[in-house]
């Protein structure tokens, strides 16, 4: 079985890092693309804690050693090299386009967590007043999330912004930023943080561009 870590452009020497379960990582060239894989005996690789972290370590090391990198999602392993090659060949153009989109760019993650939840408004005498107050609170949170996201998205080449799934998680976003703009981005985050002392900001990265490594995923 073949496990795929990433698809690379401009990979020189392979970094000295072990693959999943201590497996040796090796490059496999396909046209102008370089795949980094490891070989495993037996059944499907399980995404255990160790395996997930090993995958991430390889991707990190490759990101530092390439001009552009598409991290692979930890999904099903490939039966053999022929299966891998045919999966890649089916998407060559998409992969090339995706590589050029992430070239010399890194991903920064941002989560913004709201102040502790307020209970229902105490003066809501009627069900209708309560509902109106709730709707106003939701609209307010959406406006705030937009105000936080937009100045950062303006500094990025691309961004993903998931709809908040938990009431206190105002922003859960990823930004694709030119490597030269990372500091500027962080300064902007710090400014937003100063302007909103009641919110908790967590800016993570730079990451390899996991959130922007998309081929034709259907």
């Amino acid at each position: 079985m073949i496990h795929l870590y990433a698809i690379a452009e401009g990979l020189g020497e392979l970094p000295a890092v072990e693959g999943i379960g201590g497996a040796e990582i090796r490059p496999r060239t396909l046209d102008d693309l370089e795949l980094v894989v490891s070989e495993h005996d037996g059944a499907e690789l399980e995404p255990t804690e160790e395996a997930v972290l090993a995958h991430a370590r390889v991707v990190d090391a490759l990101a530092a050693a390439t001009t552009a990198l598409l991290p692979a999602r930890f999904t099903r392993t490939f039966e053999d090299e022929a299966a891998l090659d045919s999966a890649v060949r089916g998407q060559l153009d998409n992969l090339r386009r995706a590589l050029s989109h992430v070239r010399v760019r890194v991903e920064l993650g941002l989560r913004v967590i709201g102040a502790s939840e307020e209970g229902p408004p105490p003066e809501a005498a009627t069900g209708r007043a309560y509902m109106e107050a709730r709707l106003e609170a939701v609209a307010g949170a959406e406006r705030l999330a937009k105000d936080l996201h937009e100045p950062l998205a303006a500094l990025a080449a691309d961004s993903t912004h998931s709809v908040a799934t938990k009431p206190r998680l105002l922003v859960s976003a990823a930004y694709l930023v030119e490597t030269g703009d990372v500091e500027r981005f962080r300064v902007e985050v710090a400014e937003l943080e100063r302007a909103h002392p009641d919110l908790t900001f967590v800016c993570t990265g730079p990451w390899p561009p996991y959130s922007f490594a998309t081929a034709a995923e259907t």
Partner: protein
Amino acid sequence: MSESPDRPLEQQITLLELVDRVLNKGVVLSGDITLSVADVDLVYVGLRVLLASVGTLERLHEGA
């Protein structure tokens, strides 16, 4: 080096973001993946990984 042990929230979120990226982001090649089934499995596994591995993240930081 033990990096910012006083920021447990930041560390937890960093780990959550790492696991989320490896399992849910990144390029997918196989057209034949049964995504719905795979997603459920991965979400479940992801939670288990999260619960298990704050200590591992610290080891990673030390090893970096």
